[in-house]
């Protein structure tokens, strides 16, 4: 599903070249639940961003869902991301003025779908994450765990084959964190969704079938 071959990413800051990824090679098969771990600055978020098409590799080949994502135009990668990749962020990142249902319907609306279809899909996804009763609530009226559930529901809008999660439990208490991880496992097992999750937490990583450890922009080990 995801194949990285000698992927490098450098950032130029003034005269200094910062190495984020220094030649990562790995393969994540379809339906896998993979955790990417490592210390701060090890390159794990960068790897996630590259897989999601949020950024482009400096060199190397990156194949996502059989598409060479680094060679796509901005619009192509945006449309690809919209339908094939779901994103979950640490800080939830819901739009504060939209209700839970509207936030979930957002990708459909951006895709130009009709309101009825978007509303129906949003209702189904809210039911899936157990928040039917919170449909009309604004993010500020929801708890941290509920917000992250809405974010997961939004990420699943188009039933994407790939779900990328950047520290999805990093901002939650342990009880809510575990509930989110249960939900992710459920999505992985029931829908066959490939999940790549960046985390610091060993406990969270324990939910994944495979753990990849990064250090200084390289794969240090796999478990």
């Amino acid at each position, binding site marked *: 599903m995801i194949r990285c071959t000698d992927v490098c990413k450098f950032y130029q800051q003034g005269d200094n070249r910062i190495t984020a990824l220094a030649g990562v090679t790995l393969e994540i098969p379809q339906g896998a639940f993979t955790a990417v771990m490592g210390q701060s600055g090890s390159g794990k978020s960068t790897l996630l961003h590259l897989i999601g098409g*949020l950024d482009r590799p400096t060199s190397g080949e990156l194949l996502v869902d059989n598409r060479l994502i680094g060679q796509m135009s901005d619009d192509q990668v945006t449309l690809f*991301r919209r339908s094939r990749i779901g994103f979950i*962020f640490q*800080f939830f990142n819901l*739009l504060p003025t939209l209700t839970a249902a509207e936030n979930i319907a957002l990708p459909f609306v*951006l895709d130009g779908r009709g309101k009825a279809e978007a509303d129906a899909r949003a209702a189904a996804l809210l039911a899936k994450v157990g928040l039917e009763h919170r449909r009309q609530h604004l993010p500020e009226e929801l708890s941290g765990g509920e917000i992250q559930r809405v974010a997961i529901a939004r*990420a699943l809008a188009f039933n994407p084959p790939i779900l990328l999660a950047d520290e999805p439990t990093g901002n939650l208490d342990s009880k809510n964190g575990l509930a989110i991880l249960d939900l992710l496992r459920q999505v992985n097992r029931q829908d066959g969704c490939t999940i790549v999750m960046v985390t610091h937490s060993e406990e969270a990583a324990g939910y994944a079938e495979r753990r990849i450890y990064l250090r200084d922009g390289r794969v240090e080990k796999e478990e």
Partner: protein
Amino acid sequence: MLRLLNTISWRHLRHHRLRTFLTFLGMALGVAVIVAIALVNRALTTSFQSTIEQIAGKAVLQVSNSESGMDERVLALVRDTDGVLDVAAAVDGFLPVSGERGERLYIYGVDLLTDFTMREHQFAGDGFAFDQALDFIAQADSIAVTESFARRRGLAAGSTVVLNTSRGKQSYVIRALLKEEGTARVFGGNFALMDMPVAQLAFGKEGKLDIVDLTVETGSTVETVQARLRQRLAGAAEVERPKKRGEQIESLLTSFRVGLFFVSLIALFVGFFLIYNTVAVSIVQRKREIGTLRCLGMRRAELLRLIVAEALILALVGALIGCLLGWLLAQGALVAVGQTVRNLFSSIGLSGSGLSARELVIALASAIGVALLAALHPAIEALAISPLENARQAVWRPVFAAKKSWATRLGVLCLSIAPLLVVLAPHLTGAVRQFSVGVIGMLIFLLGLAFFAPLIVRYAAQWLWRWTLALPGVSWVETRLAADSLRRNPLRSGITVATMIISLAAIFTIAAFVNSVRGSLLAWVDQMVTADIIISSGARTAGPRNVSLHEEPAAGLRALPGVKIVDLYRLVRANYQGRPIVVESFSAALSAPVRTLPMAQGDGARVLREMAQGKGAVVSESFQTRFGAQVGDKIELVTPSGPVSFTVLGIYIDYSSDIGSVLIDRALYKKYWRDELVDAFDLWLEPGADMAALVQQIKAGYGDQYQLFISTHRELKDAVLRIMEQSFVVNYAVEIVALVVAIFSVINTLLASILDRSREIGVLRAIGATQSQVRRIIVMEAGWMGLIGGLLGLLAGSVMAYHHVVYNTKLLTGWTFQFYYPYDVAALVVSATVVLCLLAGYGPAKKAAATPVVTAIGYE
């Protein structure tokens, strides 16, 4: 503090170069307008005063009766008055140089043998001996012109110069050249000396004098001699110091000046909002930096000082650039203003000069004062930023408590005070005081509406997006997100909308005023000038280019086939109660059947009948306003025959002069003014007469001999409009400043807005929003700000324009203008604002859409 300014503020300003540059530019333009107006004002004052003083020479007192003139016998009376030492009389005025468009000479007709006691005329060459003077006087076609005039025209002593006089074209021989010194320096060297009788003939003022200059004997005081002369003249002429005469002429420009002051005030007002906007936006941008500084131990007072100092430096640098720009603007404006003054009042050389220390201080102090006031509130808001701000994920923004916010409360206060001031103004004494309080009332109204902007934005955004959905091809989410952005930060959007309200109100007020003046003038010309053909010497539209004519052509004109009525019109400047007025006359008996008189009070037909019967005079609205004359009152005018009392028969509308006009029948005028000159021949034609053929006949018959402005009714209307447009040139500078500020404000707000929403934009991009979708959201937000600002600006502008047209103009000029609402401009203001905002929003939108998603998400 300096170190903080250098390390924090300077780097921030450098980082936001475009915004810093635009702020400088906006402030500089505001100050430039103020400086330019100050320079123009000073040039006007200096030019009027110096011209009068140069002509006056050594004279300490001047006896005159404006353009009406005095009987020659006044000279003997003055000379025989105790305490008078030397006396010199003169006849003066402008005469156009024949065949040279725009070239004219200021002719000073004096007794050359006595005038040297008053003025030093320096002749070129070997001097001007007594014999030569006698030779000059002995020949009735002698003229002395300045060396510079002769050089420019390629003339020398012995050459001939042809002038358009009241008797048509006359040739004069240059028998002496004047050095450009003393009196000869006036009007840029377009000065000429003639012997008195020659000048009297040229101007048609035989037996009359325009001015008698005098000095007083040692031992007598000027005041005593002045009192003595006044007593002896018994109202037949005025006795004033030259300076006072300068002030009298200068007072003609009062309304022009107050208008310029009004423009300065708007420029400052706009400057205030500019600084406010910049400081408020920069605080939103730097809230984390401020949080960090507070964390590191910066006290609130230090933070306040830092922000205010930043604003002051911005204002000061902007003001300094503005002074330079203002000087440049003034040079251009002086040309335009000079043209206006020449058309309306007098031919005068306006020359620009450097900025005086006082003007520099006023410009800088205005900029600093405005900057301080404007920066204070955002700075105080910044003090509320918590030291924890740099640790927070949420976006900080100033709290807006909607109906209970300080802005709304201030808005309510302003909107309550404004009507009180507007109502109070007419009850105060003095037109300038009434005008000022009325204008302050209107500015407070404008401020009130501006304070309401955040509340209006908040509620307007709620329904705007739903309304926009009805438009084809509009996406739900794009409109919704654009509206949410406005609604979430109503203070920031409100500041921009407020800036637009101020700017557009200024633009619309000027536009509506111009439209009303144009509409009223055209309606007035239709009523006032019913003649089919107007043959003018230039008094109505040519200002000082006018050369009054003798009556002779009238008989010939009457004899032309197709001509039904020929009436003779005369206009002279006179004084009433020591202040300048205009005396107009025509033959009411002759033209009553075909003439109409636009009346403010009284019935025009009755008034014309009574005028024809010599029962009295009609006064203009401006006269009524300035002197309080009412129908039935008696007014005493100083005529060359002495003071004469006239009954006021009615009040007529006269837009041709704002100093006050008195209209009397020509028979009365001729009797008391002893003047048979004519400034216009008004011709009414028989039905079916060939107008074009008649015009040709008139040109063929009189065009060679006289300077004639032959115009049809239509052409006269066009000429009036042209003069009107010229007098509004300075106002257009303000429109440009207002427009620049409004656009800048939108760009500034949107830049801050996208910075504020970086992460939100990043998330949108991450979940699949394309760059064009993000661009549309931002551009739509700009468009809505434009729509709200445009509509509110139009509302404010409409109210202000109505007040300005109906009340302010009446106070300043005495004129009552009909309010003609400029529907086309209104539609243009709103649509152009929306379009400009959409364009202004495109840059920030492009920037937002192009921000790398990772950078945007990681912003916080």
